[in-house]
């Protein structure tokens, strides 16, 4: 997959810091999301930056891997943003779906944004209430490919990927298990 995250130096410009700790380092800045701790920015074509920010948290809550950095979830959301740029219906579904999540966060936890709900278990409760919706299913169905198909995350699972160019495993441990 092409590198779709633009790495930028931090800008000391105006920032709207998010209150909750879960996303404290992610800020919205003129058409982009910036993550200061991981030093990347996500430029958006179609979605509102606030929407993308919520979607990134949503992506992590759907497939939570604590050893996978947020930028890989952002890469997955960037793909959805690109699709939204060419598909007004899809874009509307994402914007509406996120607005709905925020509404549920406000009702249950008095938070303006879904990602401002501090505990994962509380956010998962919100997701359980929407998991049958086309919005949730579309995000999950996209993510199961767009997250796990990133070669950069495979080492987290121990997976080694392509092997033919290295001569396979015939001399590289296809039968190296010794603990039985």
């Amino acid at each position, binding site marked *: 997959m092409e590198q779709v995250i633009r790495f930028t130096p931090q800008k000391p410009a105006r920032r709207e810091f998010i209150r909750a700790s879960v996303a404290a380092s992610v800020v919205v800045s003129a058409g982009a999301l910036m993550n200061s701790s991981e030093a990347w920015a996500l430029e958006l074509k179609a979605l509102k930056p606030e929407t993308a920010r919520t979607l990134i948290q949503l992506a992590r809550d759907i497939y939570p891997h604590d050893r996978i950095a947020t930028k890989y979830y952002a890469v997955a959301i960037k793909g959805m943003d690109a699709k939204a740029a060419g598909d007004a219906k899809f874009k509307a579904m994402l914007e509406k779906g996120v607005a709905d999540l925020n509404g549920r966060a406000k009702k249950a936890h008095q938070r303006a944004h879904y990602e401002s709900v501090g505990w994962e278990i509380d956010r998962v409760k919100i997701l359980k209430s929407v998991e049958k919706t086309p919005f949730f299913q579309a995000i999950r169905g996209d993510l199961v490919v767009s997250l796990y198909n990133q070669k950069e995350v495979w080492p987290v699972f121990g997976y080694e*990927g392509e092997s033919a160019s290295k001569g396979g495993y015939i001399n590289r441990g296809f039968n190296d298990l010794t603990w039985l």
Partner: protein
Amino acid sequence: MTTKFRMDDDSVVVIVGSGAGGGTLATQLALKGVKVVCLEAGARHEIEDFINDEWASFGQLAWTDMRMTSGSWRVSRNFANLPAWIVKSVGGSTTHWAGASLRFQEHEFKTKSVYGEVKGANLLDWPVTLKEMEPWYAMAEDRMGVTRTNGIPGLPGNNNFKVMEYGAKKIGYSMVHTGNMAINSQPRDGRAACQQIGFCFQGCKSGAKWSTLYAELPKGEKTGNLEVRSQCHVYKIEHDNSGKVTGVVYYDKDGKSQRQKARVVAVAGNSIETPRLLLLSASGKFSKGLANSSDQVGRNYMRHMTGSVYASFDRPVKMWRGTTMAGIIQDEAKHDPKRGFVGGYEMETLSLGVPFMAAFLDPGSWGREFTTGMEAYENMAGMWLVGEDMPQATNRITLHDKAKDKHGLPVANVHFDDHPNDIKMRDHAYARGMAVYEAAGATRFFPTTPYPSTHNLGTCRMAAKPEDGVVNAYGRSHDIKNLFISDGSQFTTGAAENPTLTIVALALRQADHIVSLMSKREI
């Protein structure tokens, strides 16, 4: 210089499909001096084109044209437009198959006699016996270089096999080995030995695995008697007033309709496209579709009782390393109704890479229950459970009434409901698979739902009587004497074993039969 036959050459045998059935038949006929045009819907991707990357390879090789599904099977819910994981490429699903090459057992050719009446099952004895098939099996094993036959040693066991073997022996299984695999354990037939690459399903990069793409078709092409025409999607078989088929029409790579004349037509498009083509070829004379006086075309669709058991351990396994399916337990393959079901099942090593594991481990699931499972990936072992499923008249390929392909032709609808016998067998197999891994120290089990079908069988079945099936014991249509079915669609019942060896053996036998009929001018 590759051979090219004229479109109006009505002396050629036209074969639709270049996989295990079509590719073998095409090559064998060419070797016997018969002129063959093999039409393949997919493009020609050679060994160097194969990709060690699951989704990229899927995009390259898989049949992803629109299909529809119905019925209570979970595939219809999770993968509504992907009933089958099969291939659209020269070589067909022999590019993707795992290589397991097992003979059917004697009783599996006569299930109606042996199993008796099974409510809701459309069982029937094959019009051919194991004894009659034995020489053809022997020829197929030699040709494909099946391990543990013809003096060919077994493949070495990988880590995934070690775990399965350890657990299997601990719970008392004895028929445990690295399989009868059409994968070279040593160089043979101009092809290399297995390099333990681990991407068997993505096209074998070493060429150690038998595939019609490079182990058959080039031999046929070398004779000058075989033309393989790729990216040619046959959509109609034509016939004359006497009811003999006269040729096929197809869309070429530019989407232009072409007509190839033929003396004989053999269809081997896999058990979804083969009946679809017969149904699409309906005419005034054959209003229900070609070769369908029995109304059995498309019925009795079988996909094997399948399922997988993955298990995680406290230490690494790295199951993705090495030959994917070189490991088998055969103790449950017998017919033993005391277990509560008829027929049996094989247990075979299996692994998926991270991208496909995410898609198939528990389709649709999310959250930490799922992701902690994924995080155990490195420590997982896996096996596939594959057993005989019951033929049912209502499990069926039909033409969808609304959905159309890019040429405007109705797509196939695949309807499937598990038979109660399938469910009992699957439950038994899950329990035994988990017992194997428990004995090896598993910390967590993943009894995984069936994937989109890889073994698609039975939709033009063989039957002694024309009213019971579509073709006779040689795969020849009961209704149309110069029309043959040459793939797994012919299977009267599914047996427990992976089907490719039997498809190849039947194709070799059919080639002899076609040559004999041609020389006697019967076709």
